[in-house]
Protein backbone atom coordinates (compact mmCIF):
# COMPACT_ATOMS: atom_id res chain seq x y z
CA UNK A 1 0.00 0.00 0.00
CA UNK A 2 2.74 2.43 1.00
CA UNK A 3 4.69 1.66 -2.16
CA UNK A 4 1.59 2.24 -4.27
CA UNK A 5 0.90 5.62 -2.67
CA UNK A 6 4.51 6.77 -2.90
CA UNK A 7 4.72 5.98 -6.62
CA UNK A 8 1.23 7.41 -7.20
CA UNK A 9 2.10 10.73 -5.51
CA UNK A 10 5.50 10.99 -7.20
CA UNK A 11 4.14 10.36 -10.71
CA UNK A 12 1.19 12.65 -10.10
CA UNK A 13 3.42 15.48 -8.82
CA UNK A 14 5.81 15.08 -11.76
CA UNK A 15 3.05 15.11 -14.38
CA UNK A 16 1.21 18.00 -12.73
CA UNK A 17 4.41 20.07 -12.65
CA UNK A 18 5.03 19.20 -16.29
CA UNK A 19 1.49 20.30 -17.12
CA UNK A 20 2.09 23.73 -15.57
CA UNK A 21 5.47 24.31 -17.20
CA UNK A 22 5.54 26.34 -20.44
CA UNK A 23 6.81 23.32 -22.39
CA UNK A 24 3.89 21.20 -21.18
CA UNK A 25 1.44 23.97 -21.96
CA UNK A 26 2.80 24.59 -25.45
CA UNK A 27 3.21 21.03 -26.63
CA UNK A 28 0.46 19.20 -24.79
CA UNK A 29 -2.15 21.27 -22.93
CA UNK A 30 -2.83 23.91 -25.58
CA UNK A 31 -3.00 21.54 -28.59
CA UNK A 32 -5.18 19.06 -26.68
CA UNK A 33 -7.50 21.81 -25.43
CA UNK A 34 -7.82 23.31 -28.91
CA UNK A 35 -8.59 19.85 -30.35
CA UNK A 36 -11.16 19.36 -27.60
CA UNK A 37 -12.77 22.71 -28.47
CA UNK A 38 -12.96 21.70 -32.14
CA UNK A 39 -14.44 18.30 -31.30
CA UNK A 40 -16.95 19.86 -28.87
CA UNK A 41 -17.96 22.44 -31.48
CA UNK A 42 -18.50 19.65 -33.99
CA UNK A 43 -20.94 17.87 -31.67
CA UNK A 44 -22.67 21.09 -30.58
CA UNK A 45 -23.10 22.07 -34.24
CA UNK A 46 -24.75 18.70 -34.90
CA UNK A 47 -27.68 19.94 -32.81
CA UNK A 48 -28.07 23.00 -34.99
CA UNK A 49 -26.04 25.77 -33.36
CA UNK A 50 -23.83 28.04 -35.43
CA UNK A 51 -20.49 28.44 -33.69
CA UNK A 52 -17.21 30.29 -33.84
CA UNK A 53 -14.18 28.51 -32.38
CA UNK A 54 -11.20 30.60 -31.35
CA UNK A 55 -8.49 28.43 -29.79
CA UNK A 56 -10.04 27.10 -26.59
CA UNK A 57 -13.11 29.36 -26.75
CA UNK A 58 -16.42 28.29 -28.30
CA UNK A 59 -18.80 31.13 -29.15
CA UNK A 60 -22.46 30.80 -30.04
CA UNK A 61 -22.99 33.02 -33.07
CA UNK A 62 -26.67 33.67 -32.37
CA UNK A 63 -26.50 34.66 -28.69
CA UNK A 64 -22.84 35.58 -28.22
CA UNK A 65 -22.58 33.10 -25.33
CA UNK A 66 -18.98 31.98 -25.05
CA UNK A 67 -17.45 29.07 -23.15
CA UNK A 68 -13.75 28.70 -22.56
CA UNK A 69 -12.23 25.27 -21.98
CA UNK A 70 -9.92 26.28 -19.16
CA UNK A 71 -7.65 24.32 -16.85
CA UNK A 72 -9.77 21.82 -14.98
CA UNK A 73 -12.21 21.50 -17.87
CA UNK A 74 -9.91 19.81 -20.37
CA UNK A 75 -9.73 16.52 -18.50
CA UNK A 76 -5.95 16.64 -18.24
CA UNK A 77 -5.93 16.48 -14.45
CA UNK A 78 -8.13 13.38 -14.57
CA UNK A 79 -5.75 11.84 -17.11
CA UNK A 80 -2.81 12.64 -14.82
CA UNK A 81 -4.53 10.94 -11.89
CA UNK A 82 -5.39 7.88 -13.93
CA UNK A 83 -1.87 7.64 -15.31
CA UNK A 84 -0.37 7.91 -11.83
CA UNK A 85 -2.76 5.28 -10.44
CA UNK A 86 -2.03 2.88 -13.31
CA UNK A 87 1.74 3.38 -13.20
CA UNK A 88 1.74 2.86 -9.42
CA UNK A 89 -0.26 -0.35 -9.59
CA UNK A 90 1.81 -3.51 -10.01
CA UNK A 91 1.07 -4.83 -13.49
CA UNK A 92 2.96 -5.61 -16.72
CA UNK A 93 3.95 -2.45 -18.59
CA UNK A 94 2.15 -3.55 -21.72
CA UNK A 95 -1.14 -3.50 -19.77
CA UNK A 96 -0.25 -0.19 -18.16
CA UNK A 97 0.26 1.46 -21.54
CA UNK A 98 -3.03 0.09 -22.86
CA UNK A 99 -4.75 1.22 -19.68
CA UNK A 100 -3.39 4.74 -19.99
CA UNK A 101 -4.30 5.06 -23.68
CA UNK A 102 -7.79 3.56 -23.44
CA UNK A 103 -8.42 5.26 -20.10
CA UNK A 104 -7.51 8.67 -21.55
CA UNK A 105 -9.94 8.02 -24.40
CA UNK A 106 -12.64 7.07 -21.89
CA UNK A 107 -12.06 10.20 -19.83
CA UNK A 108 -12.04 12.50 -22.86
CA UNK A 109 -15.19 10.88 -24.24
CA UNK A 110 -17.08 11.78 -21.06
CA UNK A 111 -15.37 15.17 -21.03
CA UNK A 112 -16.82 15.86 -24.49
CA UNK A 113 -20.27 15.08 -23.09
CA UNK A 114 -19.50 17.47 -20.23
CA UNK A 115 -18.49 20.34 -22.51
CA UNK A 116 -21.41 19.88 -24.90
CA UNK A 117 -23.93 19.62 -22.05
CA UNK A 118 -22.42 22.61 -20.23
CA UNK A 119 -22.57 24.70 -23.38
CA UNK A 120 -26.29 24.04 -23.78
CA UNK A 121 -26.85 24.52 -20.08
CA UNK A 122 -25.05 27.87 -20.27
CA UNK A 123 -27.30 28.95 -23.12
CA UNK A 124 -30.35 28.02 -21.10
CA UNK A 125 -29.73 28.84 -17.42
CA UNK A 126 -26.69 30.50 -15.88
CA UNK A 127 -27.21 29.16 -12.35
CA UNK A 128 -27.71 25.59 -13.54
CA UNK A 129 -24.57 26.00 -15.63
CA UNK A 130 -22.56 27.15 -12.58
CA UNK A 131 -23.81 24.25 -10.48
CA UNK A 132 -23.13 21.65 -13.13
CA UNK A 133 -19.79 23.20 -14.04
CA UNK A 134 -18.38 23.66 -10.54
CA UNK A 135 -19.76 20.64 -8.74
CA UNK A 136 -21.73 17.99 -10.65
CA UNK A 137 -19.43 17.41 -13.60
CA UNK A 138 -16.34 17.56 -11.37
CA UNK A 139 -17.83 14.69 -9.39
CA UNK A 140 -18.79 12.71 -12.49
CA UNK A 141 -15.35 13.05 -14.08
CA UNK A 142 -13.79 11.94 -10.82
CA UNK A 143 -16.05 8.90 -10.66
CA UNK A 144 -15.29 8.17 -14.31
CA UNK A 145 -11.56 8.18 -13.54
CA UNK A 146 -12.08 5.85 -10.61
CA UNK A 147 -14.30 3.56 -12.65
CA UNK A 148 -11.82 3.39 -15.53
CA UNK A 149 -9.04 2.49 -13.08
CA UNK A 150 -11.12 -0.24 -11.45
CA UNK A 151 -12.21 -1.65 -14.80
CA UNK A 152 -8.56 -1.72 -15.88
CA UNK A 153 -7.66 -3.70 -12.75
CA UNK A 154 -10.42 -6.16 -13.55
CA UNK A 155 -9.00 -6.75 -17.02
CA UNK A 156 -5.49 -7.44 -15.78
CA UNK A 157 -4.39 -11.03 -16.32
CA UNK A 158 -4.66 -13.36 -13.36
CA UNK A 159 -1.30 -14.52 -12.12
CA UNK A 160 -0.24 -17.65 -10.25
CA UNK A 161 -0.47 -17.19 -6.48
CA UNK A 162 3.29 -17.14 -5.98
CA UNK A 163 3.55 -14.21 -8.37
CA UNK A 164 0.58 -12.26 -7.07
CA UNK A 165 2.04 -8.74 -7.00
CA UNK A 166 -0.61 -6.56 -5.35
CA UNK A 167 -0.12 -8.10 -1.91
CA UNK A 168 2.30 -5.40 -0.79
CA UNK A 169 0.29 -2.80 -2.63
CA UNK A 170 -2.81 -3.29 -0.55
CA UNK A 171 -2.01 -4.98 2.71
CA UNK A 172 1.45 -3.81 3.73
Amino acid sequence: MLRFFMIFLAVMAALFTLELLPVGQRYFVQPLTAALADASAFFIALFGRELIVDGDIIIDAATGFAAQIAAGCNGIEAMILLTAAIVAFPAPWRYKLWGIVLGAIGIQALNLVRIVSLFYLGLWHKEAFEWAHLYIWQALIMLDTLLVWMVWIRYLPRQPNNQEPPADAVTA
Partner: protein
Amino acid sequence: MPSPPENFSLSGYFLRVLLWLPVFFALWYFLSGFFNIVPGLASQWLANILYNGLVVQIESAGRHIEYITSLKMQAADGAGVGNVVVTLNPLIYSWNIPVLLALCFAVHDSLFSNARVVLAIAALFPLHAWGLTAELFATVLFRQGTAVAEQVDYSGWQLEAVAMAYQFGYLMLPVIGAVSIWFLANRQLVEQLMANKGR
Protein backbone atom coordinates in the same frame (compact mmCIF):
# COMPACT_ATOMS: atom_id res chain seq x y z
CA MET B 1 -14.66 -8.76 11.44
CA PRO B 2 -17.46 -9.15 8.85
CA SER B 3 -16.36 -10.64 5.58
CA PRO B 4 -17.16 -8.97 2.26
CA PRO B 5 -19.35 -10.75 -0.27
CA GLU B 6 -17.57 -13.13 -2.62
CA ASN B 7 -18.61 -11.58 -5.92
CA PHE B 8 -18.08 -7.86 -6.11
CA SER B 9 -20.04 -6.24 -8.93
CA LEU B 10 -18.29 -3.14 -10.21
CA SER B 11 -21.26 -1.98 -12.29
CA GLY B 12 -23.61 -2.56 -9.36
CA TYR B 13 -21.34 -0.59 -7.07
CA PHE B 14 -21.13 2.42 -9.40
CA LEU B 15 -24.85 2.31 -10.04
CA ARG B 16 -25.43 2.59 -6.29
CA VAL B 17 -22.90 5.45 -6.14
CA LEU B 18 -24.84 7.32 -8.84
CA LEU B 19 -28.11 6.74 -6.99
CA TRP B 20 -26.66 8.06 -3.71
CA LEU B 21 -24.97 11.03 -5.35
CA PRO B 22 -28.00 13.37 -5.77
CA VAL B 23 -29.08 12.64 -2.19
CA PHE B 24 -25.72 13.62 -0.78
CA PHE B 25 -25.31 16.59 -3.12
CA ALA B 26 -28.59 18.00 -1.78
CA LEU B 27 -27.57 17.29 1.82
CA TRP B 28 -24.13 18.81 1.32
CA TYR B 29 -25.50 21.95 -0.30
CA PHE B 30 -28.04 22.62 2.43
CA LEU B 31 -25.55 21.84 5.19
CA SER B 32 -22.67 23.64 3.50
CA GLY B 33 -22.56 26.31 6.22
CA PHE B 34 -21.84 23.51 8.71
CA PHE B 35 -19.26 21.85 6.48
CA ASN B 36 -17.50 25.21 6.03
CA ILE B 37 -16.84 25.82 9.74
CA VAL B 38 -13.79 23.62 10.30
CA PRO B 39 -12.05 24.35 6.96
CA GLY B 40 -12.76 28.07 7.40
CA LEU B 41 -11.22 28.21 10.87
CA ALA B 42 -8.35 25.96 9.81
CA SER B 43 -7.61 28.17 6.81
CA GLN B 44 -7.58 31.27 9.04
CA TRP B 45 -5.12 29.54 11.35
CA LEU B 46 -2.96 28.32 8.45
CA ALA B 47 -2.95 31.71 6.71
CA ASN B 48 -1.79 33.40 9.92
CA ILE B 49 0.95 30.80 10.35
CA LEU B 50 2.18 31.48 6.81
CA TYR B 51 1.89 35.26 7.12
CA ASN B 52 1.54 36.50 10.66
CA GLY B 53 -1.62 38.53 11.24
CA LEU B 54 -2.92 38.31 7.68
CA VAL B 55 -6.48 37.32 8.59
CA VAL B 56 -8.14 39.38 11.32
CA GLN B 57 -11.48 37.62 11.24
CA ILE B 58 -13.60 35.28 9.14
CA GLU B 59 -17.33 35.56 8.65
CA SER B 60 -19.93 33.37 7.04
CA ALA B 61 -21.72 34.98 4.10
CA GLY B 62 -24.35 32.51 2.99
CA ARG B 63 -22.44 29.60 1.54
CA HIS B 64 -19.31 31.74 1.15
CA ILE B 65 -16.61 32.69 3.63
CA GLU B 66 -15.40 36.27 4.04
CA TYR B 67 -11.82 36.79 5.16
CA ILE B 68 -11.25 40.19 6.70
CA THR B 69 -7.55 40.79 6.28
CA SER B 70 -5.18 43.22 7.93
CA LEU B 71 -4.21 44.54 4.49
CA LYS B 72 -5.35 48.05 3.65
CA MET B 73 -6.97 49.30 0.47
CA GLN B 74 -8.12 52.69 -0.77
CA ALA B 75 -11.90 52.88 -1.11
CA ALA B 76 -13.19 53.03 -4.67
CA ASP B 77 -14.43 56.62 -4.24
CA GLY B 78 -11.12 57.62 -2.68
CA ALA B 79 -12.90 58.64 0.50
CA GLY B 80 -10.92 56.47 2.87
CA VAL B 81 -8.92 53.36 3.59
CA GLY B 82 -10.39 50.04 4.65
CA ASN B 83 -9.43 46.45 5.25
CA VAL B 84 -9.26 44.17 2.24
CA VAL B 85 -12.07 41.60 2.42
CA VAL B 86 -11.72 38.44 0.35
CA THR B 87 -14.84 36.39 -0.31
CA LEU B 88 -14.26 32.76 -1.27
CA ASN B 89 -16.55 29.93 -2.30
CA PRO B 90 -15.56 26.86 -0.24
CA LEU B 91 -17.91 24.63 -2.22
CA ILE B 92 -15.45 24.47 -5.11
CA TYR B 93 -13.19 22.50 -2.76
CA SER B 94 -15.77 20.60 -0.76
CA TRP B 95 -17.80 19.04 -3.61
CA ASN B 96 -15.85 15.88 -2.85
CA ILE B 97 -17.87 15.44 0.38
CA PRO B 98 -21.02 14.17 -1.40
CA VAL B 99 -18.89 12.05 -3.73
CA LEU B 100 -17.03 10.42 -0.85
CA LEU B 101 -20.29 9.88 1.02
CA ALA B 102 -21.83 8.23 -2.05
CA LEU B 103 -18.75 6.02 -2.49
CA CYS B 104 -18.89 5.00 1.18
CA PHE B 105 -22.63 4.36 1.31
CA ALA B 106 -22.62 2.30 -1.88
CA VAL B 107 -20.47 -0.46 -0.38
CA HIS B 108 -21.97 -3.73 0.82
CA ASP B 109 -23.46 -3.61 4.32
CA SER B 110 -20.74 -5.87 5.64
CA LEU B 111 -18.10 -3.29 4.68
CA PHE B 112 -19.96 -0.21 5.90
CA SER B 113 -19.04 1.61 9.08
CA ASN B 114 -20.51 4.86 10.39
CA ALA B 115 -17.32 5.70 12.23
CA ARG B 116 -15.31 5.22 9.05
CA VAL B 117 -17.59 7.57 7.14
CA VAL B 118 -17.30 10.29 9.81
CA LEU B 119 -13.51 9.92 9.88
CA ALA B 120 -13.33 9.99 6.08
CA ILE B 121 -15.28 13.24 5.88
CA ALA B 122 -13.25 14.77 8.71
CA ALA B 123 -10.08 13.82 6.84
CA LEU B 124 -11.20 15.98 3.91
CA PHE B 125 -11.38 19.17 6.00
CA PRO B 126 -7.62 19.88 6.05
CA LEU B 127 -7.58 19.54 2.26
CA HIS B 128 -10.42 22.07 1.97
CA ALA B 129 -8.45 24.35 4.27
CA TRP B 130 -5.45 24.03 1.94
CA GLY B 131 -7.55 25.09 -1.04
CA LEU B 132 -9.06 28.05 0.79
CA THR B 133 -5.71 29.25 2.16
CA ALA B 134 -4.02 28.99 -1.22
CA GLU B 135 -6.87 30.86 -2.91
CA LEU B 136 -6.79 33.55 -0.22
CA PHE B 137 -3.08 34.14 -0.87
CA ALA B 138 -3.55 33.95 -4.65
CA THR B 139 -6.32 36.54 -4.41
CA VAL B 140 -4.40 39.10 -2.36
CA LEU B 141 -1.18 38.59 -4.33
CA PHE B 142 -2.51 38.39 -7.89
CA ARG B 143 -6.05 39.79 -8.07
CA GLN B 144 -6.26 42.81 -5.79
CA GLY B 145 -3.69 45.00 -7.49
CA THR B 146 -0.10 45.86 -6.69
CA ALA B 147 -1.00 48.19 -3.80
CA VAL B 148 -2.39 45.22 -1.88
CA ALA B 149 0.15 42.64 -3.10
CA GLU B 150 3.07 44.84 -2.01
CA GLN B 151 1.84 44.76 1.58
CA VAL B 152 2.46 41.01 1.61
CA ASP B 153 6.20 40.81 1.41
CA TYR B 154 6.34 37.86 -0.95
CA SER B 155 8.52 37.64 -4.04
CA GLY B 156 10.21 35.21 -6.42
CA TRP B 157 9.80 31.60 -5.37
CA GLN B 158 7.14 32.50 -2.80
CA LEU B 159 4.84 33.83 -5.53
CA GLU B 160 5.52 30.72 -7.61
CA ALA B 161 4.75 28.52 -4.60
CA VAL B 162 1.45 30.33 -3.99
CA ALA B 163 0.44 29.95 -7.65
CA MET B 164 1.38 26.27 -7.61
CA ALA B 165 -0.40 25.63 -4.30
CA TYR B 166 -3.53 27.31 -5.62
CA GLN B 167 -3.54 25.33 -8.86
CA PHE B 168 -2.87 22.11 -7.01
CA GLY B 169 -5.51 22.84 -4.37
CA TYR B 170 -8.16 23.64 -6.96
CA LEU B 171 -7.41 21.22 -9.77
CA MET B 172 -6.00 18.13 -8.11
CA LEU B 173 -6.49 18.00 -4.37
CA PRO B 174 -10.30 17.61 -4.26
CA VAL B 175 -10.03 14.49 -6.40
CA ILE B 176 -6.83 13.06 -4.93
CA GLY B 177 -8.11 13.66 -1.42
CA ALA B 178 -11.44 11.96 -1.92
CA VAL B 179 -10.00 9.02 -3.85
CA SER B 180 -7.12 8.46 -1.43
CA ILE B 181 -9.37 8.63 1.62
CA TRP B 182 -11.91 6.34 -0.03
CA PHE B 183 -9.07 3.95 -0.85
CA LEU B 184 -7.82 3.93 2.75
CA ALA B 185 -11.30 3.76 4.27
CA ASN B 186 -12.37 0.91 2.00
CA ARG B 187 -9.30 -1.27 1.85
CA GLN B 188 -11.36 -4.44 2.09
CA LEU B 189 -13.32 -3.43 -1.00
CA VAL B 190 -10.15 -2.59 -2.92
CA GLU B 191 -8.55 -5.85 -1.83
CA GLN B 192 -11.61 -7.68 -3.06
CA LEU B 193 -11.41 -5.88 -6.38
CA MET B 194 -7.76 -6.84 -6.69
CA ALA B 195 -8.50 -10.42 -5.71
CA ASN B 196 -11.08 -10.55 -8.47
CA LYS B 197 -8.50 -9.28 -10.94
CA GLY B 198 -8.90 -10.82 -14.36
CA ARG B 199 -12.50 -11.94 -13.84
